């Protein structure tokens, strides 16, 4: 009898820790609201602002979860978003069609993702290092695109063309729809299930008849779609594109995913909502920093500390006491 109650409690504990990042987000929201009241903030505007600042990372990170679930790591996402946006912008300027621009963004991003995954799976390369190489290729491509374009340092889509899409509702719609699709694929289809299993134990997955190459390619395609959507959203938000467009996205995605409680080793503990939770948590944290007008250096130090604390809490039930994690 006693044992049973202990077991129940143990099961419960496991659950509570697994949603610690959600508590982290809630805590940040509370802190934000408290500070906002004290600092006389325009809260309504702020909410819109927070969505604006989270949505691109949230979308891309949600797609990237598929890669992370496999225990892989893609560092070229930001550069890929930049290339997609630039090509998309050029296509708009050539054709004047927003639809074509949208399709181009997604197409280019998916193509890049496919190259990454095919390279990695055909030649059995470690994914992370492949994406490091891809990162430097994409950076070069960005410089070349800007060169080809010949209009100076930027590729600008007319603001009027995309202003209609730069609205809260459109962004929410894209985020919610894409999240729903990912949630469905991740938790309710064979694809997501097998990916989680593959990430958890590739050897066993192979011996369970799972085709790791195909799943890796699907994961990359999902992330490619996300990058395409993200780059389209960033065009609508800031239609003047430069070599630095989306440059911080790559690292923001990694940080958000981890902040949202996703284990870096992937596997069965992967959660599709980690990306959204993490992206919004990071934005709320940033907003709190902004309100206190911290020196960038100190602000970044505070961010690092909070990041570590939240992630340690989230993962405190997964730790091996005996040996250090690798």
């Amino acid at each position, binding site marked *: 009898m006693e*044992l049973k109650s*202990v*077991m129940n409690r*143990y*099961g419960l504990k496991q659950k509570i820790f697994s949603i610690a990042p959600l508590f982290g987000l809630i805590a940040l929201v509370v802190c934000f609201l408290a500070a906002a009241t004290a600092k006389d903030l325009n809260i309504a505007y702020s909410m819109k602002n927070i969505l604006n600042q989270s949505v691109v990372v949230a979308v891309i990170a949600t797609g990237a979860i598929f890669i992370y679930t496999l225990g892989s790591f893609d560092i070229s996402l930001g550069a890929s978003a930049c290339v997609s946006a630039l090509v998309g912008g050029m296509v708009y300027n050539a054709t004047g069609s927003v639809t074509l621009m949208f399709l181009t963004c997604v197409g280019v991003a998916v193509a890049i993702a496919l190259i990454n995954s095919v390279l990695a799976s055909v030649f059995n390369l470690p994914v992370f290092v492949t994406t490091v190489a891809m990162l430097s290729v994409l950076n070069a491509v960005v410089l070349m695109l800007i060169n080809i374009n010949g209009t100076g340092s930027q590729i600008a889509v007319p603001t009027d063309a995309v202003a209609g899409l730069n609205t809260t509702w459109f962004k929410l719609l894209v985020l919610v729809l894409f999240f729903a699709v990912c949630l469905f694929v991740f*938790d*309710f*289809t*064979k*694809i997501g*299930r*097998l990916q*989680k*299993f593959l990430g*958890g*134990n590739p*050897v*066993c*997955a*192979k*011996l*369970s*008849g*799972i*085709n790791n190459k195909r799943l890796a390619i699907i994961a990359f395609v999902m992330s490619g779609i996300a990058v395409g959507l993200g780059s389209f959203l960033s065009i609508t938000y800031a239609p003047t594109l430069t070599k630095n467009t989306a440059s911080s996205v790559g690292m923001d995605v990694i940080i958000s995913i981890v902040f949202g409680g996703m284990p870096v080793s992937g*596997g*069965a*503990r992967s959660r599709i909502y980690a990306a959204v939770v993490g992206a919004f948590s990071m934005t709320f944290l940033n907003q709190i920093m902004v309100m206190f007008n911290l020196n960038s250096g100190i602000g970044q130090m505070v961010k690092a500390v909070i990041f570590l604390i939240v992630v340690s809490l989230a993962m405190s039930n997964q730790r091996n006491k005996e040996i250090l994690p690798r």
Partner: protein
Amino acid sequence: MERKAVVEIRDMTKNFGITRALDRVDITVYAGEICGLIGENGSGKSTATSIYAGMQSCDNGQMFFKGERWQPSSMMDALEHGVGMIVQENGTVPGITVAENIFLGESARFRKGPLIRRTEMIRKANEILKSIGADHIEASAVTASLDFQDRKLVEIARVMGKKPEVLVVDETTTALSQKGRDIIYDIMDKMKTDGKTVIFISHDLDEIMEVCDRLTVLRDGKIIRTFEKDEFDEEAVKTSMIGRELKGDYYRSDYDGSYGQEVVAELRQANLGDQLKNLSLQLHKGEILGIGGLSHCGMHTLGKVLFGAVKPESGEALVHGKPVRDEAYAMKEKVGYVAKDRDVESLCLDASIRDNISVAGLDQFAVSRFLILPSKEKAYVKQQVDDLSIKCRSAEQYVSALSGGNKQKVAFGKWTGRGSEILILDCPTRGVDIGVKQAMYQLMYRMKKEGKSILLISEEMAELIGMSDRLIVMKDGEIKKEFRREEKLSESDMIRYMI
């Protein structure tokens, strides 16, 4: 004659999370004896000895060594003071040399100034290898290049180099050839005659009764009974191990040995390095085909080749007459494969029971083989959990929290659930307690009766003899002998062809 107590464990308690691994255990071992510890998996025998040998600490209780309080801080510390242990799993580090393994963690012994003298270390290591009769191993070789048995010998050398007063041998002999076993038996004998102490852990009743002077049985973390040499009795020991009399059959009771005509799976002149040499065999419908041999005779590879997980260099693996392209194809042809290395190859430990069982069965319950409906999945998984009586809190529990036997049941559930017609079972009862073993043997038998085919690869000769319709003995990638099922078949008949 007054016996001198060397090892004393008093009132030892150890918990792993919610599991009580040891419950107020008292053990005393004397000088000049070989004391056996026996019990089912998870009974606590390895836990108790590993605490004594400094591998982990206990929550409660006291230990004494030659009458003095004994609190080793690590295995190295324990070994330094005279207590050495040869562990069950692989206890060597692959990426370094044999000499470095022998002096693992004590390179400082060869320090001259701040630097380590490598040649001196190698010379000393070779000396030790020679002293235990393993001079075929070169101390400067990289350990990963040795086979399993030699790696075990390196481990033994590491312990024996320290000339311990107490030696703990934990299920070491199972995977060794006669030569390896002889080396260990010699060492144990020598220690005994020198008035030192040996604790021998095994699940092999015959072996343990042969070797030991005294025998202590553990069950569920408690000491059940200690048998003196003159009290040794197989049935009595077995009964105290499982706490009840085994009802019904353990293995199958018939000696019929018949099976269908139809060949469901076969290997044709398969070659793969030194693992398979022009090997052909056929598995028939309704047959339990046993394959035995030493750990590295190639039988484990054979299982993988038949499942399509490993490609032979030449020759082919066929199921229902068609070549097996890969695992997915094999599964489509209703082949299932339970791997030897359960925690790595059969299961994803960091996933739930549900995940593990349903991963191979998605094509069974997923709508259009794609869409997973939680209700359907739940029902599918529950069916397997119930059928195999897997003991768990819920199907959401992580597999890592289960006992060895229950883990293996999950691995079975993966394949039985999807109605596999051909099962390749590689060491299916390894590290599984007697109760579960019995259940599995009965399950295999039932499946045979249902017309399913089973390839039973095992290092345990008793179960091969007990279960197989046909029994093949392999050595060095070749088939050395084929036995038909008969009552008189004994382990020594097999061993002759294995070694």
